[in-house]
């Protein structure tokens, strides 16, 4: 097999396995990149070579490794370029002086501990080709790394970028990162010349080059950005020039004596930030680098990681010592510095765990060390294990030590600027997942209709989740995430302003968050906010025609809160293009139809209908019962009649009970839905909406119904949407009519399974 073919097969394996394992780790709520690193290790002698040595030897022979090396170095160069692009000076200056202080201490302590640890390790795991100074310097630098990219993503995914903890952590990590790279540069220079004094010319030259890039280079790149503004496009010509610049810069730093990656990082850092140019550049570069080249780097690193080398208890003890020093140094250093600076215990703990993340950056440093011969394969493996463990423990420990709600309370700016403050303790909450604010006006109107302004203290939360699917994309950096959130906020505000009547707008309080799993996050938020109802629109999912499939289906399957799905069929009048945004008439809610058969889902539908009835004085409700032929007629249950009698008179007057006999309940409902504004049906078999064995719902009624349709499904045993309705007073008469059957009202209110009609 020719080498090229072999390398390509290896690339295929590497990319496929990386994605697979990465997904697995995503499912464990860990960063995707950890999965990719583990995939690389699995392909090496630690797993693949152990389990099937002959196959591993055939697929990854020694001749192919140098080619993988070249590919991985190219990937690394461009990856460092991307990292430099993301490094925003605003992180470095930091709003809080305490951040810079903490970050410096969080380098000094692990570095010193690392240097002391090298006293132990040097005679054991090094050889005399490496001077002690180089070894100690390297180990110190390896201990003091914090992975800024991984940290930034963890912060964004947990929606912390607006909180004090988040900004603190980002600043600390950014300063840490830059300082650690400088330490690494020094370590490399010292290693190559094997003495500190010999390294001085190298360091001096590097300092000059850095200065040059940050002044002249920056000036030039700014002109480039201006040129981009004018032309509005990033041509391939300019792109070629920039890529050449990246490679040239990398070569220069390599020649100077520090590593290739610094040059690439430097030119990325020198690019002007927040420009369209940078965004487009990142977009064009990252897909190929992150999906193709970077996993090759991980595989190359994995081929050099031999967990099998740790085959005695003594070695594992040594590994544990390295891990302990690393964790202790970072965590304690950060914690103490933060506390001294006045940060609360909980925040300082969280900050300590966040700074402990070593991840990908550590791996880059270790590979350089191994290639230079400063660290041996054994120590390399131990440090890789340390990097993985410290990164793996960050997310869980963060959640454990600092509950997310408390973090949200520390928001630096209130996210609801300009809207009315939330009522003190809303008693009724509706969560409305809104994917695209422009098209969800009908949904929002319905939500406010159900919530109502006068019935009780109610609140409607339109929930907009910004989906971050790509890990490590430019779009998932905190700065970009903030931009996306701000944009969604604007759109939501436009939507809210268009709601009628104006009083309805007060009950609306948007929630906007970053998420990478919309269904899961929606359910979690519903749980946390103690929502009484999730009201969502239907989506047509990509691979099927079922309106209740896809995301809607996921929420329906996993929800613990009552759910209502709105299928909007009101015709959209043709709008003249000038009208911005498209102004829809508020949906008509004058005639409601509730097909009724005894069952919990239909009950929910009826409860919601009654709420709308109370909130809209012109509304009329028809309750339709369908009797199958040859069956005894379905009697209205005792409780239902009891509820009816409790409603105040003008409300009762607007309810019509009608009965139809038909063998096809579904057809009867469809016929009745003509001329009605909204049909509210429970998710039950009679109306053609039932849950099949695999959890999918049939949506026959949704397809055939003439009017807009609201499908209701009850999950919660205790939520009552009716409580406020039962005690409502007639606004016209002002008298409390509910005292008619006090016994009944007690029974109904105390009924733990909700209104059992």
């Amino acid at each position, binding site marked *: 097999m020719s080498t090229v073919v072999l390398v390509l097969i290896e690339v295929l394996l590497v990319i496929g396995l990386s994605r697979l394992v990465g997904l697995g780790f995503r499912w464990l709520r860990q960063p995707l990149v950890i999965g990719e690193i583990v995939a690389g290790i699995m392909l090496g*002698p630690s797993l693949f070579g152990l389990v099937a040595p002959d196959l591993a*030897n055939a697929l990854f022979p020694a001749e192919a490794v140098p080619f993988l090396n070249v590919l991985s170095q190219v990937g690394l160069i461009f990856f460092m370029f991307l990292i430099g692009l993301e490094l925003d000076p605003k992180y470095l200056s930091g709003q809080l002086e305490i951040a810079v*202080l903490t970050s410096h201490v969080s380098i000094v302590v692990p570095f010193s501990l690392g*240097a002391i640890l090298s006293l132990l390790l040097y005679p054991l795991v090094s050889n005399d080709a490496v001077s*002690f*100074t180089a070894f*100690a310097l390297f180990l110190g630098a390896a201990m003091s790394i914090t992975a800024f990219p991984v940290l930034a993503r963890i912060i964004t995914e947990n929606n912390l970028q607006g909180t004090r903890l988040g900004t603190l952590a980002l600043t600390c990590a950014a300063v840490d990162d830059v300082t650690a790279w400088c330490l690494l540069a020094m370590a490399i220079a010292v290693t190559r010349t094997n003495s500190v004094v010999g390294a001085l010319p190298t360091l001096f030259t590097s300092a000059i080059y850095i200065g040059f890039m940050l002044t002249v280079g920056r000036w030039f790149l700014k002109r480039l950005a201006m040129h981009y503004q004018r032309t509005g496009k990033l041509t391939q010509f300019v792109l070629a020039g920039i890529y050449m610049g990246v490679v040239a810069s990398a070569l220069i730093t390599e020649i100077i004596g520090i590593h290739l990656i610094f040059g690439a990082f430097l030119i990325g850092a020198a690019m002007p930030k927040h420009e369209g140019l940078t965004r487009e550049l990142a977009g064009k570069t990252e897909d190929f680098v992150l999906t193709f080249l970077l996993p090759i780097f991980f595989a190359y690193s994995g081929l050099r990681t031999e967990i099998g080398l740790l085959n005695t208890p003594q070695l594992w003890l040594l590994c544990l010592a390295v891990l302990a020093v690393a964790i202790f140094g970072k965590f304690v250093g950060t914690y103490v510095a933060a506390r001294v600076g006045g940060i609360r215990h909980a925040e300082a703990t969280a900050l300590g765990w966040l700074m402990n993340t070593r991840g990908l950056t550590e791996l880059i440093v270790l590979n350089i060390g191994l290639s230079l011969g400063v660290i041996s394969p*054994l120590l390399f493996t131990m440090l890789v294990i340390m990097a993985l463990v410290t990164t793996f423990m960050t997310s869980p420990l963060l959640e454990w030590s600092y509950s997310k709600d408390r973090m949200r309370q520390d928001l630096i700016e209130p996210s609801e600027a300009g809207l009315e403050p939330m009522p003190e303790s809303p008693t009724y909450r509706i969560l409305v997942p809104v994917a695209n604010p422009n098209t969800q006006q009908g949904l929002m109107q319905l939500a406010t209709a159900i919530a109502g302004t006068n019935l009780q203290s109610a609140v409607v939360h339109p929930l907009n989740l910004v989906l971050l699917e790509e890990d490590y994309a430019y779009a998932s950096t905190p700065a970009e995430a903030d931009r996306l959130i701000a944009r969604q906020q604007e759109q939501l505000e436009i939507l809210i302003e268009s709601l009628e009547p104006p009083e309805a707008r007060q009950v609306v309080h948007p929630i906007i968050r970053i998420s990478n799993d919309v269904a899961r996050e929606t359910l979690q938020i519903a749980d946390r906010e103690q929502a009484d109802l999730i009201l969502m629109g239907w989506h047509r999912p990509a691979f099927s025609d079922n309106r209740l499939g896809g995301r809607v289906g996921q929420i329906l399957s996993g929800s613990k809160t009552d759910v209502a799905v709105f299928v909007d069929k009101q015709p959209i009048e043709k709008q003249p293009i000038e009208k911005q945004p498209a102004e829809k008439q508020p949906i008509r809610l004058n005639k409601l139809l509730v097909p009724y058969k005894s069952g919990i889902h239909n009950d929910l539908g009826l409860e919601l209908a009654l709420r709308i009835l109370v909130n809209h004085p012109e509304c009329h409700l028809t309750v339709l019962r369908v009797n199958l032929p040859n069956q005894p007629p379905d009697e209205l249950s005792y409780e239902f009649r009891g509820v009816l009698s409790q409603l105040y008179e003008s409300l009762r007057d607007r309810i019509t009970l009608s009965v139809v006999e038909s063998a096809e309940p579904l057809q009867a409902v469809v016929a009745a839905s003509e001329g009605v504004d909204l049909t509210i049906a429970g998710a039950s078999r009679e109306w053609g909406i039932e849950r099949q064995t695999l959890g999918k719902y049939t949506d026959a009624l949704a397809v055939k119904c003439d009017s807009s349709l609201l499908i209701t499904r009850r999950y919660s045993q205790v939520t009552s949407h009716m409580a406020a309705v039962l005690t409502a007073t007639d606004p016209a008469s002002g008298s409390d009519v509910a005292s008619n059957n006090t016994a009944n009202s007690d029974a109904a209110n105390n009924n733990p399974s909700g209104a059992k009609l």
Partner: protein
Amino acid sequence: MKGHFHPKTLLFYGTMIGSVLILFRITSAYGEKHLKAPPDINGRYISTQAPPGCPDSTRLALTLLQSGIYLHGAVHVEETGAEAKSAQDKPTLDGRWEQSQVVLSGPTGAFANCNLTAASDGAVNREVNIQGQINSSASDTPATLTGALTIADSPPWQFSAERQAVAQKSSDH
């Protein structure tokens, strides 16, 4: 960043950085003077004679992988002058560098084709034990490993092996 120019802050930073530097100098001075790491004995060692029971044209090739005092190795029986193939066979021997001695032991299938004096029980893998000293006197003569190789229960075979001129690992990254 004007807060950084308070005398107190400057003093703090100065003390912190100063103490780290001093700590590092002390540590590295101590380390350079007192700590000795084992010499670099990585490489392939080819014996000067054929192993016992093996054809005369063969030689013993011992690959040593070193991580400080922890050694791993692999043995092969190869034709003289054969190219270094299968350089990445899993090292099956483990050992340490103790008191300037190389001590390695472990199973190997390298002697499958040799006639060994010990009762041939048909086993492919045999336990081998290697003990020896590395002599790297002059810088231009290759280092030599002098020692004894014991296969299973047979009497030890004294041998001397020369380190192959290591094709200098081009400083790859």
